[in-house]
């Protein structure tokens, strides 16, 4: 009977393709929008993720997320270093100077000022040049996307000069950095050099990066620092989540994407449900004949579920493929780079599609189960 079910479905080309398209459309919209949302949220934490050599971020107690910095006095660095379990602790500056190229192009840039001695927090994926070159005068390392904004064509060249807040900055390295939320160029310099670019202020230290001694868990060290200094201390992942939650709570981004996902869910359910229901209605006299012949309700239910599962699976696979192809096609476009279909999103989309086809088939199953087989004699 499975064979009959599949032939009934597949040979009705228009409805078969309509069902697959509606489910593929829903799967594409859901997975695409969720992936972009997740990607954007991930971008908000890009500077946190790119710091791989320190486990704990220390900041003013009032700081809510990475882009809202309240500078700390230098004395806090020594207090943190004094906490038991701290292997090392260094300064980190994060500021937003204006970068300008010789041809007049300019952008606000994210400047990360790294500890002069250790360069802790430096990018690990250098494309051209060496991170040690940061020790040269006025040296900065810029991320590839930023470099391509200022110099769209030609090979990657070192030694080019930019102005950061009207002061000379020489590019000594080009790195791959995670795409930031604002799509600004990301630059790295020594802490002392960064001070020159942003001008003197009373407090300049944005964060303190700390690493626990061997055997001390990062979370425990963060708790100790918080308790002993009154500062906020979070592990990298915890700071990342705090940043993401800030954006979720305080921006319309999740509402916007959420509405799109809900619309996709509704449209997918209604269109596929209606098409599937019409398909079942049009086959009602055949289902009636099968019932009269002696096919059980359970078997007919199985046939409908098989049909729904087939279109659901094909539609889901097509939708996920469309999303994947979209992200593959746009991976080299600077402002769209870094978006991927997360495994969790693919799995979540699968369960949503499962829900859609369950609703779609439920109406048809109900109709078929309530079908009076004697109706088959009434034509």
């Amino acid at each position, binding site marked *: *009977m499975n*064979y*009959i079910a599949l*032939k*009934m479905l*597949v*040979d*009705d080309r228009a409805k078969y393709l309509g069902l697959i398209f509606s489910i593929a459309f829903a799967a594409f919209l859901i997975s695409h929008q969720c992936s972009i949302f997740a990607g954007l949220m991930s971008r908000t934490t890009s500077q946190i993720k790119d710091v791989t050599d320190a486990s704990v971020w220390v900041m003013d107690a009032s700081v809510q997320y990475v882009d809202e910095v309240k500078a700390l006095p230098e004395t806090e660095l020594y207090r943190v270093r004094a906490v038991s379990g701290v292997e090392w602790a260094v300064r980190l500056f994060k500021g937003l100077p204006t970068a300008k190229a010789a041809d007049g192009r300019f952008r606000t840039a994210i400047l990360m000022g790294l500890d002069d001695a250790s360069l802790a927090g430096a990018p690990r994926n250098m494309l051209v040049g060496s991170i040690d070159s940061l020790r040269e005068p006025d040296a900065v390392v810029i991320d590839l996307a930023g470099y391509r904004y200022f110099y769209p064509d030609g090979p990657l060249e070192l030694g080019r000069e930019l102005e950061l807040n009207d002061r000379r900055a020489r590019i000594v390295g080009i790195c791959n950095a995670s795409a930031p939320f604002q799509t600004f160029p990301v630059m790295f310099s020594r802490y002392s050099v960064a001070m020159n670019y942003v001008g003197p202020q009373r407090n300049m230290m944005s964060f303190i990066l700390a690493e626990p001694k061997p055997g001390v868990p990062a979370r425990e060290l963060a708790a100790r620092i918080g308790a002993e200094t009154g500062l906020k201390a979070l592990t990298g992942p915890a700071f990342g989540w705090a940043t993401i939650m800030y954006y979720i709570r305080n921006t319309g981004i999740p509402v916007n994407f959420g509405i799109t996902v809900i619309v996709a869910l509704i449209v997918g359910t209604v269109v596929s449900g209606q098409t599937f229901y019409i398909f079942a209605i049009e086959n009602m*006299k*055949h289902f*009636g*004949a*099968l019932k*009269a*012949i*002696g*096919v*059980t309700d359970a*078997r007919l239910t199985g046939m409908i579920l098989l049909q729904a599962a087939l279109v659901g699976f094909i539609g889901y696979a097509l939708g996920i493929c469309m999303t994947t192809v979209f992200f593959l096609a746009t991976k080299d476009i600077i402002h769209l780079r870094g978006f991927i279909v997360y495994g969790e999103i693919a799995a979540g989309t699968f369960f949503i599609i499962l829900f859609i086809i369950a609703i779609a088939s439920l109406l048809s199953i109900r109709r078929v189960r309530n079908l*009076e*087989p*004697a109706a*088959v*004699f*009434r*034509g």
Partner: protein
Amino acid sequence: MNIPSPKLAVRCRSLTKDFGSAETQVRVLHGLDIDIPLGGITMLAGQSGCGKTTLLSIIAGLLNATSGDLSVLGNSLTALSKKEAVLFRRRNLGFIFQQYNLLPTLTAAENAAVPLLGDGVPLDEAVGRASTLLERLGLGARLHSRPAQLSGGQQQRVAIARAIIHSPRLILCDEPTAALDGKTGHDVMQLLAEAAVEPDRAVVVVTHDHRIFDFATQVAHMEDGRIKSIETKNQT
């Protein structure tokens, strides 16, 4: 509950059937008595609305009688559970419908194989058996044709094949010639009489078409939900 009546396919006594309830209740069958023997074709004839199709549906177990006794192939259908009734239909009954009710996406052979597939016979074996039967019925060249590619007479031959492929003991036909011209209808009845009538099997035909009465062993004329007369024809 088994009712011993070995030579009868169907035995109805005081059968009534009401539709609706309270003020809207309509009695369609009024204490109807009929015996349908094995080994022949019994036709139920009468005007539209006289209760022929309702009686056929009750014999098929697709409708329940309101009151009275009904025995089909020695079984009281009212004593069977819903699941047992479905199984009983699958194993013992064959159906031929006025509009053929062939599945449009299946080939002739696949359509004829449907009762076997429903009983769990593997696809290849079921289609093979259906093909052999269709060849016997003169459709050897159209095994792979879909219903839309067949004439009305050919479709009804496929329906006959579907009705007999699982060797049921009772075949129920609802106006099998209504959608066919006179000659094709005659040919279809000829085929039905040759292929379906066996000593241990009964065929019940609901019809308006008096031109096919010659194929019957008995014709029950119905009027207003009652058997008006039973005419015994050529015995086989």
